[in-house]
Structures are given as structure tokens and as C-alpha cells.
């Protein structure tokens, strides 16, 4: 197990190294500059600004400097936001994205588990079909289409919520629902398959023979075992939430990281793009690593069989 973790962490750092390098050189290849639009600078001013941001150094020097700073957790300064430190900027925006993400994840997973359980326990009934349809819709319909729909119905037409303004927790309700549809669908599908498999195993039969009631079997025996593999889908779910957050935050005007990322792309703000890219990558890679390790720790069957897949 320890060897496996060390190996995985080594790969993680290699992936991160490639991402950081690729991002850096891609940014340098970009046509246009963040300072182009920032008013008409005289040649002297331009020289001063370029000197200040270190844009005059040869590329390799810039690269080494950038990587060195990165290792110390310094993402550089933003070109657009009055020299704001990118790390501080990200951390400031993180709060909003975290609220949306965790709400969507928790609510979505719980609803998904319930739907999946109902489908498995009442297999081939109207309940099963209903929950399967919800799962298919959730997997198929992009979160931004769903988000736009929610906004149109509940904010524009019914006027229950404000359009495009962050006013505390209430503003996080609609975007969280829009983001939650993915986790709901994935969890519901997964739990249904797992539960059906678990329900037909011998120990469930034994529990039935011993006279355990349906409720006890469903929750105490079946669900607990069906839940373990659910951890494995957490990686894709996190990736989906992140992708969704880029557009959902845009639609609901949530001042989070996703919105910041899209904004910095349109304004060519190199250091913010690089910073958020690396931040997103670290976030996803670390989550997938934790999920894999956690799965090995929780389910002894995987450890014993040497982590086969």
C-alpha cells in the first residue's frame, strides 16, 4: 500500500509539472498581450511595465523564475486587477465556488442514493422507471442548459430569486441545484446497479431467512455495501462539478473561481489563467488520488487482491 501511494504521488507531481510547463509555454505562444488594451502606453512606459513584470527576460529565465515561484505557492500578480496577488485572488473567490460545490455534492449525492435505492428495491416498477429517467436526463442534459432553464423559470418568470446578483446564501440555491443534477444522476445509476447486485448475494438471503425485515435489510445490509464503491465515482463527479461551475457561475453571476477563469480568458490575463489552471489541476488530481487511496483503505477486498481493476 505504501509503495502504491508513493508511486501515485510521484505520478501526480509529474502530471502537475507537465501542466505547469505546458500552461507557461502555451501562454507565451498566445497572440495578444494583456497590456495591449490597457490604454496607449508610450514606449518608455511600456518598457517600464515590461521590466516590472519581467517580460523582457529571455524565455528560459522567465520559465525558471515562474517555476521557482510556483513551488513556493506564488502564482504571480494579475495584470488586470491592480497588481493583485493571484493566490490571494483565487483564495478570495474560492469561498463562493466551495459553497456551490459542496452543496451540490452533498445534496446531489443524497438524492441520488435515495433514488437509486428506490429503483433497486422496487425493480421494474414505475418507481424504477421514474428514477432511471431522472438519471438519464441528468447524465445527458448539460448543466448549463439546466441552469438556464432554472433561471428562466424561477428567477425570470416566477421572480422567486434575483437575477445575476450575489446576495448571500439564497443566491446559491439555483446554481447549486443546477450543479447537483450531475451527482444525482451518477449516484442514482451507480447505487441502483450496486444494490441489485448486493441484494442477490447470499448474505442478504441469510438475513431474510433469519427474519430481518425489509427496512433493516435495505439499510443495514445492502446499502452499506453498495455505498463503498460509490467513492470511486467521486473523481468524475468532482471533475463534472468543476466543468459545470465555469458556466453555471457565469450564468448566475456568482463571483467564484469559474467565473474568474472565464473572465481572465477574455481579457488575456496570463497570470490569472495560469494560476487558476494550475489550481484546478491540483484540485482534481488530489481528489482522484485521495479517492483511490481511500477506496483501498476502506474496502479490504481490494487491498488483498492487490488493487486489481
Amino acid at each position, binding site marked *: 500500500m505504501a509503495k502504491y501511494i508513493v508511486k501515485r504521488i510521484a505520478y501526480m507531481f509529474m502530471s502537475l509539472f507537465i501542466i505547469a510547463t505546458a500552461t507557461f509555454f502555451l501562454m507565451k505562444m498566445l497572440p495578444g498581450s494583456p497590456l495591449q488594451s490597457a490604454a496607449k502606453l508610450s514606449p518608455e512606459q511600456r518598457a517600464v511595465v515590461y521590466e516590472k513584470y519581467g517580460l523582457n527576460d529571455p524565455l528560459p529565465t522567465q520559465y525558471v523564475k515562474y517555476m521557482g515561484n510556483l513551488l513556493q505557492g506564488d502564482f504571480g500578480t494579475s495584470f488586470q486587477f491592480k497588481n493583485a496577488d493571484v493566490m490571494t485572488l483565487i483564495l478570495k473567490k474560492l469561498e463562493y465556488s466551495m459553497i456551490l460545490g459542496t452543496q451540490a455534492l452533498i445534496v446531489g449525492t443524497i438524492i441520488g442514493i435515495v433514488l437509486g435505492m428506490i429503483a433497486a428495491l422496487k425493480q421494474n416498477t414505475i418507481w424504477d422507471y421514474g428514477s432511471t429517467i431522472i438519471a438519464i436526463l441528468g447524465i445527458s442534459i448539460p448543466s448549463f*442548459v439546466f441552469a438556464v432553464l432554472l433561471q428562466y423559470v424561477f428567477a425570470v418568470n416566477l421572480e422567486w430569486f434575483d437575477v445575476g446578483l450575489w446576495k448571500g446564501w439564497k443566491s446559491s440555491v439555483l446554481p447549486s441545484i443546477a450543479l447537483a443534477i450531475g451527482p444525482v444522476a451518477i449516484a442514482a445509476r451507480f447505487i441502483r446497479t450496486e444494490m441489485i447486485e448486493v441484494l442477490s448475494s447470499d448474505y442478504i438471503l441469510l438475513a431474510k431467512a433469519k427474519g430481518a425485515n425489509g427496512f433493516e435489510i435495505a439499510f443495514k445490509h445492502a446499502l452499506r455495501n453498495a455505498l463503498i464503491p460509490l467513492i470511486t465515482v467521486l473523481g468524475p463527479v468532482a471533475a463534472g462539478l468543476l466543468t459545470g461551475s465555469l458556466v453555471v457561475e457565469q450564468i448566475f453571476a456568482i463571483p467564484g473561481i469559474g467565473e474568474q477563469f472565464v473572465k481572465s480568458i477574455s481579457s488575456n490575463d496570463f497570470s490569472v489563467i495560469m494560476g487558476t489552471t494550475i489550481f484546478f489541476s491540483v484540485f482534481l488530481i488530489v481528489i482522484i488520488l485521495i479517492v483511490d487511496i481511500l477506496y483501498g483503505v476502506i474496502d479490504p477486498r481490494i487491498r488483498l487482491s492487490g488493487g486489481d481493476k
Partner: protein
Amino acid sequence: MSDSTKQYTKERFEQITIDRDQAEVIEKPSLSFWQDAWFRIRKNKAAIVSLFILVFIIFMAFAGPFMVEHDPDEVNVTHANLPPKVPGFEKLGILDGEGKLGSKVVNLYEVKKIDEYYWFGTDSLGRDLFSRLWKGTQISLLIAFVAAVIDVFIGVIYGGISGYYGGRVDDIMQRIVEVLIGIPSLVIVILMIMIMEAGIISIILAIALTGWIGMSRIVRGQVLQYKNQEFVLASRTLGASNSRIIKKHLLPNIMSIVIINMMFTIPTAIFFEAFLSFIGMGLQSPAASLGTLINDGYKFIEYQPHMLFFPAFILSILMIAFNLIGDGLRDALDPKMKD
């Protein structure tokens, strides 16, 4: 007992001889793999309905722009922001050209004195949304299909080489994949689009660049599983070359799993295209795709909801259809679930 023995008199029995030539005769017509798969997928109602819907949408994507006299790129500012109006439906009170002007609901066609019909209305530049929608669907499908084919092509070759040759080659190739798989595809796609000029080709390349990894892993696993089986060993013993073994024995066997995965790659590509266009990194006007149409429609959501509704609806239907067909194919082709 005695009654029943009486009934079976000797005359009722007939001596038969076993014809050894007939012992191996197969009574039922032999089904090829694909006939067998078709037989099973036919029972899956959701997949069949999806297939029909998909065929219809593909047909409309090509025929749709020719069904109305308006060109998808034709700008006509005097006809801007018209709601849908369909001949025949107007008497029913729906799709009759009524829309909001300011805060009042009026028939915009009468106000602007327009005799033509725009089935799905027009956008802010007066372009016909019916032909634009199908043109956009066509582009979205094109991007998704080409990206998926490239994914399959690279994935099968990479995974095939890695699995078939094994040893050190496999080691090195898999280490590369393990590093690449850690990189979030979304990030790469966005960065690629940023340095390339936005257009169909750059979107296809960006999507294909990240999509092949999953496919290559699946193909590698399959090749590893098949290459040591007896029929391959027998073929090798009989002197078949590597290329013959790959072409005749391995490829046909991994084909089904490749097709299943392709059915899931296509909706992912459609989604990515729409996603990129929605955040403004996709196709540039006047080119249309489902994503750009949704993006355009979103800007006018308060007054022109129809602009958003149609492309969003087609996008969702397409995604659902592909997912259901993929599910159906998986159930039909996966030998493990064969009954």
C-alpha cells in the same frame, strides 16, 4: 400404470438409425455477431426509439436548411426578433407570431407587416432560426463525429501497440498515459483553443487531443486479454504473421467495445463543443453550432425565450439519444451479459 402401457402398442414405435453425418448439423440458422446483436437491441425500446429520433435529427440537419426559403446566414434587420409562426398552427393560438413588445403581448408579424413565416422565429439580426438551428446541428454533429473518429483511431493504435507488444514498450507507453490521465481534459481543451484560432478544426483537435486516452486504456486491456487466448496461439502456431493476427483475430474481437465507447464519446464531444461555444470560445459568428445558438439565445432569455428553447431542446435530445443508444449497444454487445 397398466392403462398407459396398453396404449403404447408396438406399432406405434419406429426404429431409427443414427446417421452420423447428421450429428453436426445445426438446425437454427447461424447468426453472425451483428445479427445477434441486432436481435437483442431490437428488444430495447428506448434504444430503438432513440435510434429513430437520431436518424430524424441527422436527416433534418441536412434537409432542414433547404426546407425554408430563408438562408441560415441571411441578415434581415427589419425582421429581427420575431417569435415563431407556423402556417396552420396560428388558428390554434400557438406558434402564431405573438410575442412581447416592451411589456405588451402583440402579434409582431402584424405590427411589422410581415407576410412571411419564420417557423422558429428570428434572432436579433433577423436570421431565420429554423434553418440556423439545423445548420448548427449539422456543425455540432460534424465536430462530434470527426472528434470521435480521431479518438478511436489514435486510441486503438496506441492501446493496440501497447497491449500487443507488451514488455518495455508497454511499460513506457503506460507510464506516459498515467501522467497524461492526471491532466484535466477541460483545462487542456481551453488552453488549446486559446492558442489556435477558434474554428471547427481547432475545436475538433482540442477535443480529440484529450479523448483518446480513455479509449487507448480500454483497447489495451482488451488486447491483453485476447492475445494470449488459444485461438490466437493456434493461429500463431500455424504461421500467421503479426499483422494477420491483429487484423483477423484481435480487431474483430475488440470492435464491439470500441463501438460502445464511441457512442459515449460522441455526446461528450457534442457537450464540449456546446460548452466551449457557450463560454465564448467556440465558433465565431456567422457560423452556427448548437452551442453558439444557445449562447445567443441566452442573451435574450427574458424577451425571446424561443431563441434559447429550440437549440437547447435539440441539444438535450441528441445527448439523451446517444446515451440511450450507447446503453442499448452495451447491453446488446457485451458478451458477459449474453443470456
